[in-house]
Every structure is written in structure tokens, then in C-alpha cells.
């Protein structure tokens, strides 16, 4: 398998639990584990450039010109909808004064199971708890209107607000769909510029909306389908396993990266990746496959090996029911 990896520090027995900051294997494991974690954003999203530019445009227009928009981002699980939004927002944040100009509210259908809870969460995220105080509102729309009015700057122009609704289809199951109705209503009337972005995995989410809600929705849909080719898939795998360029031990990272390249060229590993690709094109499946080899990196085992990846694949694809019946 090519070049020998030089371990910088003397070989300490793996029994010790103490943190050794300078040990490269240890740092490598740290970095790779973080890359495979659930909330880490990937560096680049392959195959989603068009969708990214569309969303970028939309949000930009709301922030700069005060135009109200609504859009639904639809795609299967693991296709990259949430990552797309986060990537677009992180790029926009590099603009001057962006965070001051555009307020953001992130809601999730799994967490806010009720419109009442959703309203409290909106109040909290817009940091208007003190303004609301102990007021009692007659209806949902009154409350929401009050919140948006409170955001008006001194010269009667209100700040644009971005609403991102994750698990949008769960919001459609609330009673009377009040939250959705009010949000889309405000986006159609000329009061406050808001941008409503809904993320969902159901293709038929439009059917779930009531007539009055559907008519206020702009019917703009962005489909995010996972259409990675096998080459793209291998590229994603390589990116997951590469060490970043600012790694402390430069030569070590170069050796490591070239080792990863060689590993991924091997026919056995290509075979495993192809089989995983045919099972599931998701990046999440790939992360699951790589967890086992990465976690087993240690002093005695400082590199990823073919057998490690093959074993991990075998473990993932065992049929649960057959295993239980032995």
C-alpha cells in the first residue's frame, strides 16, 4: 500500500487515556470524526450549483429590495436540502451588514408541534420577548402582526425577515394551518417583506395545503434530487477523508492524503464503494460506512486499510433479521 507513515511521537501503548495533543494519529481521528458528524457542513455541494444560485438570488432580493418571496425546497432524505440552505446563508453572511439587514427565524416541524409553540419560538428568535411582555392577543394573526410591526425601524420601513421551515409537511398537519396561512398571507400583502423557505421530503406537499393557503403560495418549487454520478460519489468520499490544508504537521497530511488517494484507487475498495453507491446514493450512507474504520484508528493502526473498509461494509449490509435468527 505504498509509503510508510512516519509517526511523529514515540509509540505509546494505546492503554493510556490521556490526551496527547501532539500525536498526529490522534489529531487525524479528531478531524475525521468531526467531518463525519451530523451537524458539520460539507465544504462543497457537488451537483447543486443551479439550485444554490437560485436560492441565493431569492434571499438576496428579499434582503436588499424588500421583495416578499416564498419557495419550497423538495427532495428525498439526505439529498442536501438543509446543507444547501446553510451554505447559501453562510455565503450571504459574507456580505456587508447582511445579518443586520435580514432577520432569520429557523423553525422545525419536529420541534414546534403546535402553532402556539411556533409563535413562542418566533418571539424568542426575534428577541422580542420583552416587547411582548404579558400581552394577551386575540388571534394568531394579531400576534404575528404585532411582532412584525415591532420590527419596524424608526422610518416606518420594516426589516425583512427570513423564515426557514424545516419539515414543512409537519406544519401542514397543524390545526387550520394557521401559521402557514399567516406567513403566506403576509408574503402576499405588501406589509412586511418576508421570505418563507419550506424544506420537505414529500413530493406531494402541495396537496396537503388548504385551498386558501395554496392560493397564497407562490408555487415556486426547487427540487433537490440526489443525482451524483459514481465519480462524484468517489470525490465526496475523498473529500470526507482528506485532511485540511491547515493541518499542523504538513508532511504528515501530504502523506496521508496521497495514501487516501491510493486506497480509493484499489479495486476492492472501488468495488465496495460501487456496491454502497448502488444501495444508497446518500452521503449519510457513506458516513455510516466510514465510521467504523475511522473510529478504529489508533497507534497500532494508524492508517485506513482495505480490510477495515470491507469489514465495515459487511457489517452494515448484514440482514438484521437473518442475524437474529442465526
Amino acid at each position: 500500500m505504498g509509503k510508510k507513515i512516519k509517526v511523529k511521537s514515540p509509540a505509546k501503548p494505546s492503554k493510556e487515556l490521556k490526551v496527547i495533543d501532539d500525536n498526529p494519529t490522534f489529531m487525524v481521528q479528531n478531524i475525521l470524526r468531526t467531518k463525519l458528524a451530523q451537524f458539520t457542513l460539507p465544504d462543497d455541494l457537488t451537483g447543486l450549483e443551479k439550485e444554490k444560485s437560485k436560492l441565493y438570488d431569492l434571499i438576496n432580493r428579499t434582503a436588499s429590495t424588500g421583495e416578499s418571496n416564498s419557495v419550497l425546497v423538495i427532495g428525498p432524505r439526505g439529498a442536501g436540502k438543509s446543507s444547501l440552505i446553510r451554505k447559501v446563508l453562510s455565503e450571504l453572511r459574507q456580505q456587508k451588514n447582511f445579518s443586520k439587514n435580514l432577520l432569520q427565524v429557523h423553525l422545525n416541524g419536529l420541534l414546534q408541534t403546535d402553532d402556539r409553540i411556533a409563535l413562542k419560538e418566533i418571539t424568542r428568535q426575534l428577541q422580542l420577548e420583552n416587547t411582548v411582555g404579558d400581552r394577551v392577543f386575540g388571534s394568531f394573526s394579531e400576534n404575528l402582526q404585532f411582532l412584525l410591526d415591532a420590527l419596524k425601524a424608526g422610518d416606518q420601513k420594516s426589516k425583512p425577515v427570513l423564515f426557514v421551515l424545516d419539515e414543512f409537511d409537519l406544519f401542514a398537519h397543524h390545526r387550520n394551518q394557521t401559521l402557514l396561512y399567516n406567513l403566506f398571507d403576509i408574503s402576499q400583502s405588501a406589509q412586511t417583506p418576508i421570505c418563507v423557505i419550506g424544506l420537505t421530503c414529500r413530493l406531494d406537499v402541495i396537496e396537503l395545503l388548504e385551498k386558501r393557503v395554496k392560493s397564497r403560495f407562490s408555487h415556486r418549487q426547487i427540487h433537490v434530487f440526489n443525482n451524483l454520478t459514481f465519480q462524484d460519489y468517489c470525490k465526496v468520499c475523498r473529500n470526507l477523508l482528506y485532511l485540511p490544508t491547515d493541518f499542523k504537521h504538513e508532511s504528515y497530511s501530504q502523506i496521508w492524503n496521497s495514501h487516501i488517494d491510493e486506497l480509493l484507487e484499489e479495486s476492492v475498495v472501488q468495488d465496495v464503494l460501487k456496491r454502497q453507491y448502488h444501495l444508497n446514493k446518500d452521503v449519510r450512507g457513506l458516513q455510516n460506512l466510514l465510521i467504523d474504520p475511522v473510529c478504529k484508528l489508533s497507534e497500532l493502526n494508524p492508517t485506513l486499510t482495505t480490510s477495515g473498509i470491507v469489514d465495515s461494509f459487511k457489517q452494515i449490509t448484514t440482514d438484521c433479521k437473518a442475524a437474529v435468527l442465526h
Partner: protein
Amino acid sequence: MEDWRVLEDTVPCREKEIENILALMGQKDQMTPASVFIYGHTATGKSHVVNSLLKISQVPYVLVNCVECYSSRFLYEHILNNLSHTNHTEQYRCDNMNDFIRSFQQIIEEKNYKDHTVYIVLDKAERLREMEANILPSFLRIQELTQCNVCVMFISEIVWDKFRSGTGSCEPYILQFPDYSKDDLMKIMSLDCPTDYDVDFYSNFTNLVLSVFHLVCRDLKELRHLTMLNFDKYIEPIQKGEATMNDSRKLWRNIEPHLRKALQTVYLREVSSAQWEKLQMEMSSTESTAMLSRSHVELPFYSKYLLIAAYIASYNPVKSDRRFFKKVSKMTRRAALMKKKERASNHLLGPKPFPLDRLLAIFYSIVEGRVAPTANIFSQITSLVSIHLLGQTAGDDQIEMPKYKCLISLDFIRSVSRTVNFDVLSHLYDFM
């Protein structure tokens, strides 16, 4: 790691699984996969391994049993309270997932757990499927929702395929705990050895028990129970002085019939363990008959029919006799049956007394062929009374029309009627 070798004594035969879980956990401040799903049969050591590992690793963790925390509120409050180690005055109040995530983030901030992985272990995770629909998907994504270093471990006996529902959610990392092999079972059961006996001697005994039961039962809990139950019987000859520890043949011959009998009722617990032990003691002292619940009583042919007739007479109301035993079935207007629920079950009320001629009428109608009313039949009735299968009511002095009542249970009469190929249930009013 030196620590985990300590576990070898308390958690034997699980090295590979311990290694896997420790690799996943990594160092305290490393990111762990967001959700891990551990499954395996009962008594394979899943909860035991996970709990022991978390205890010795000194990481912040919460153990939750989903049978105990059956509602979402109990679940959230249990996790928050245990994570923040509050005393009783400052308990958390939380009944929705939104507040839970917020409070969870707050606790991690306060307690400075930001750099450590926090573990939440959900035992009996199959109960989560019956709770609110947003609980399971949220726990699978908890790293994403809280943006903290959390790991949720689901422990269950059911495979992951049965947990998928709705539109799906993140898949956890799946670990299987296989069953113990025969050698592993022997090793673990020999840890149970009572202190005043030799370990080798006890392992020989467990070997014997395993050889009898291994084909039928591999559940560690059941095997340990059986071993402990039968050990006293095994060492009885030693205690009585008839054999020594080395006379394995003699001890085997003593215990073998009991083990074979226990084989019939493994898992069933037809009698409680205390009763079983008592019966074993009695059996060795007297050479008496087997347990009553499974006895067959040998009766002459006509006595069986008399017994069945007596049971029917006791438990059927008089008016229904016509319906059951009329030889000629006319299309008469049938009296409307009361709804089954409203009829008081005669079986609940107990046997009713019946006169002799009713017994004989029923007897003649159920017996096949002609039976002459000889003194033999009548003396059989008296013998049934003397062995307490029938009871005589209304005193000895009534010679004209003696009244009897049937004293046996439904199971007994069913087994008797099975021996003569007679379907007694179709002749009982309560089963119509």
C-alpha cells in the same frame, strides 16, 4: 485500556462488543456518531455492557428506561433532571420537544459539557414507537438540532427495520449483540457457584444441565433459574451421605428424571419455584404419584360416561337439556337465547345439585349403544362418590331420589372426555 480489562470479571465473554463500543466512544472530547442502535436477544448483555462502560468512562450520561418513562413529559424531565443533578426543589418542567432542546442546550452551557460527549441511553427503545410521533425522529437528529456533542444509544430487542415509519429519518449506526455460545454460557453460569461448593463441581453440574436443555433453550436467565432450582436436588445424595462429589454417575442418575420432567415445562412456570422445590422434596421422601394438575385417573368405561353426564347435569340449566338431548330435532320455535354477556356463567356459580334420574337420563343419551340399568351402573355411581369425584347432597336418609353434585374441574372433564372421544364442550350451555 487498563480500565476495560477490569470489566472482564463483571462482563465476561463480550470482548468484541466492548471493543466496538469503546472505539465508537473514543476520547472524551471527540465527536461520536449521533445515534447508535444496539440490538440482540434477551439476556445477551446489552444494557449491562453499556451501563458498565459508561460508568467507568466517567463521561456525563443519562440512563433512561422507556418502559418507566412512558410519556414524553416523564422522558424529557428524567433526562434534564439527571443531566443537571438538581435537587428536588429545582426540578425541570418540560412537556414538549422544543423546550426540551432549549433546556438541554442550557444545561450543557452551564455544566460546561461543551467539550465532552454527552450520552443518552434509551433502553427498551421499542416503546418509543408508541409515544408521540416526533420523539424518535428528533432523538435520531439530536446532534443537528442541538448543535452539541451528544450521542444517543438505543437498546432494543427488535431489529431496526421495524422502527422505520412515515417519511423516514436519519439512520443510526447499528451494532448487533449475538447470542452467547455454549462455552460462554458455561463460563457465565459457573460464576453463580454457591460459596461452599467447588467451582469445578458446579461447572460439571452446569454442563449436565446444558446438555439436557441446550437444544430447547438458550436464554441465559432461564438456564440460570433452572440450574439454581435443581442444584439442591443434585446435591441431595451428598448431603444424605449416599455419594461423594466424585460419584458423578450416581448423581447423574439421581437428577436425570427430574431434569427431563423440567424439560417439559421450561419457561412455563406452571407451578411456582417454591412449589417445585417442595414437590421435589416430597417426591424423594415418598414414592407418591405425580402432580395433580397433570394426572390421569383411570376409570372404567361407563364410569367415565357417568362422570361426564354428572358434569353436564351440574353445569347446564334444566331447561337446556331438551335442546341438547332431544333425539328428534323438530323445527320448533326456539326460545331466544339471552345475550351471552347477560347470562350468568354457570361455571362461575359452581356446580348445582341434580337428582339421580336426571343423571341417568343424560347418561343413557350420551352413551353409545344400549345399556341395561343393572346394579353395576349404580355401584359405579357410589364409587365415584367415594373417591370424591361426585358429592352427595341432601343427606343420607333420602333413599328415594338421592341428589348429587359434580366436584371436578373443566380441565379434568375435558381430559376424561378426550379419552372416550366425546366432545363435552358442545354439550355445555356456557359454551354455546
